[in-house]
């Protein structure tokens, strides 16, 4: 009989306790972030979409060589002797004209190995994480701006090296 009433009291107390916890949570700030209107602030050094500042790129191709998934395609030609000398922002002379610098983000494994060998620090991983598109080919980002002078550039730029 005593345990019966003790259990009854215990049940009542635990119910009230849990209601108290629920009441406290009713007024705590909710953790939901309303995504499309409010966006996550990515932490510094986040490894998201690759970006190449083509003005600083010397076309050395070290990034393409180190890439484990071969997602970077670079095609260059030598700049003519008569052309004026141009420099990257850290003073390195740019001797090659990069007319193809494509990064296929569908193949990127976000290892960021390509950013370390870059001598002019022009290839970086940015914090951009929204890049859904309607066509898969739109994930191939074309960074090169120059046109080749001596070689005719291929019409359709394929990232396949084979």
């Amino acid at each position, binding site marked *: 009989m005593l345990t019966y009433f003790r259990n*009854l009291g215990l049940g009542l107390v635990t*119910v009230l306790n*849990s*209601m108290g*916890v*629920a*009441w406290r*949570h*009713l*007024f*705590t*700030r*909710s*953790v*939901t972030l*309303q995504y499309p209107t409010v966006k996550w602030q990515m932490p510094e050094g986040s490894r998201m979409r690759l970006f190449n500042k083509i003005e600083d790129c010397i076309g050395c191709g070290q990034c393409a060589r180190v890439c484990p998934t071969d997602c970077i395609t670079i095609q260059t030609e030598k700049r003519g002797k008569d052309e004026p000398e141009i420099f990257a922002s850290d003073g390195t002379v740019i001797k090659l004209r990069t007319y193809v610098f494509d990064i296929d983000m569908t193949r990127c494994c976000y290892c960021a190995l390509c950013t370390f060998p870059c001598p002019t620090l022009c290839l970086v991983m940015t914090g951009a994480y929204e890049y859904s598109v309607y066509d898969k080919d739109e994930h191939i980002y074309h960074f090169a701006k120059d046109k080749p002078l001596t070689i005719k550039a291929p019409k359709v730029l394929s990232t396949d090296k084979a």
Partner: protein
Amino acid sequence: MESIAQLLRLIPKYEAFPQLVQALLPMLVSCVLIFAVLALAVLFAVWLERKVSAHIQDRLGPMYVGGWHGWAQTLADALKLLLKEDIVPASTDRILYKMAPYIVFLGAFAAFVVVPFGASSFVTDLNIGILYVVAVGSLSVVGIIMAGWASNNKYSLYGGMRAAAQIISYEIPSAIAIMAVVIPAGSLSMVEIVNAQKGGIQNWFVFRNPFIFLAFIVYFVASLAEVNRTPFDIPEAESELVAGYHTEYSGMRFAFFFLAEYANMFLVASVAATLFLGGWTQLLPASIAPQILPGPVLFFGKVLVLIFIQMWLRWSLPRVRVDQLMYLSWKVLLPISLVLVLGVGWLAVDW
């Protein structure tokens, strides 16, 4: 219905209508009114449930539809359910399957006939009002078993059987707890019971004496079980029975089960508010504060407070086991309610 009939007499040439129309029109109008009020209340309650549950779980809940905190979310959901395909599985008992949602809803809907929303806003004043509510309210068990049986699905049948066992068990303590109010009120009529509580908060039956206060708690717990709400939601335990007795239902028939569930919530909350919290009567006596709030507003306010407590309980407690459920009904609530009725009777007798 008398007040509605009086309002209808304002229609020009109402006396010239056929006798049958004059007899049936007030009924029809009151049915439509109750259905409209109930449907709106249910839409609001579903929205409130989603918001309360979300905030208790540190979420936000619906935020987009309609603009302000997703107020139109349930409206959109109801429209969606209306437009969805009404699937009747191949091996069901078609007639029972199609009837079940309406019978479940009928139980809650018909009971509202005697609930006084205000001093004169009630459909009819039966002299056995509360008995009628208890009787008609248990009609939904029939519909639930029909749904479970006709679905030809073991989970549905389990859900239906569990619902029947649970609702029938919990009707006994809840009915006896109601007796604790009927004794001091001296009447079974809902209107009379509310009239007995006029004159402010100290006249409400909950605060009359400790026995009735405990009876209120007993009624509240038993009513939670009667409307299959957590912590007593074993008839529709998602983790065990898919969705319980309405597993096979889709579209508008599913919406009707949903409507019935929330209408039942409103019913038990209205009955609790009418019997224990003074129904539409004012909070403070006329000598202290001016009585400006109209009765229906007070009534719905009290009902909403009770519904909020139901939701609060739902989102703070886990589900009880079947044996615990039966233990609580037969070994805890039933003896306690019997003792409470004895106590109330002892106090009611003028020694």
